[in-house]
């Protein structure tokens, strides 16, 4: 499964990549903000995106809305992984088409469970 991690923090990308590799996912690509993500998704073949919210250039919610407005990308499930924990933010992301929502701080098991739930649903 080809997965895109989108976070401006190298630290968070590394933590999420470690979690994915422990789950057996090895084709993990990285983007540093929403605009970079949109560019990389254009290459095609991605089956899951993990998206931070607060990033420079293009935020995660802006990127999510752009993905869901693009006929070529809208089927790709996007999990928001963010410290934005207010209900209004979570609702905004779900209404914009997020497949799931993980609040930082998270335990690795929580991220694994949310990823598994989304990938099982996509099958």
């Amino acid at each position, binding site marked *: 499964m080809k997965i895109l991690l989108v976070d401006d923090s190298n630290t968070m990308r590394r*933590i999420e990549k470690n979690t994915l590799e422990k789950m057996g996912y090895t084709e993990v690509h990285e983007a540093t903000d929403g605009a970079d993500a949109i560019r990389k998704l254009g290459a095609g073949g991605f089956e899951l995106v993990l998206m931070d919210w607060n990033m420079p250039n293009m935020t995660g919610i802006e990127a999510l809305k752009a993905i869901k407005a693009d006929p070529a990308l809208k089927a790709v499930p996007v999990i928001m992984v963010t410290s*934005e924990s207010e209900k209004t933010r979570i609702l905004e992301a779900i209404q914009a088409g997020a497949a799931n929502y993980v609040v930082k*701080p998270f335990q690795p098991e929580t991220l694994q469970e949310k990823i598994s739930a989304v990938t099982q649903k996509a099958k």
Partner: protein
Amino acid sequence: MSQLKIKVEHINPFVTSTIETFAKMVGVEAKPGKLMVKKGNKEDYDISGIIGISGGAKGMVALSFPKSTALRVTNKFVGTAYEEMNADTIDAIGELANIVVGYAKKGLSEFNVLISLPSVITGTNHQIMEPKDVFSFIVPFETPLGGFHLLVSLKAAE
């Protein structure tokens, strides 16, 4: 002028978020000590992750560590084995601060605050200058990886 005022209890979301962040993402217990009013700008630490706050409240929040604690925390947080500070450890301290403040934000919902991207200051006994006319509080923490402190400087926006 805003009718809202920052009170000592508005420090609590940051303390709770620090405890939760260390428990979930670093895998250690962070025990808070007694809240203190900050005096002076000199830090007795080597690295600080700083987040600016704007919107209905203005100020900043910082997590400050001695180098040895920062390395141990980073290695446990990220799964690395660095013996010296580098770009990765600096990024990790900034991200820890980002998670702590981002998650604490919901405890300040009446202020509708916005947070900045993280900044990191390094250097022995570096100085953090808080905004003027702001009460600054320090909460020391102890962990099995060493001690650090949380600095919260906030005032309601006018």
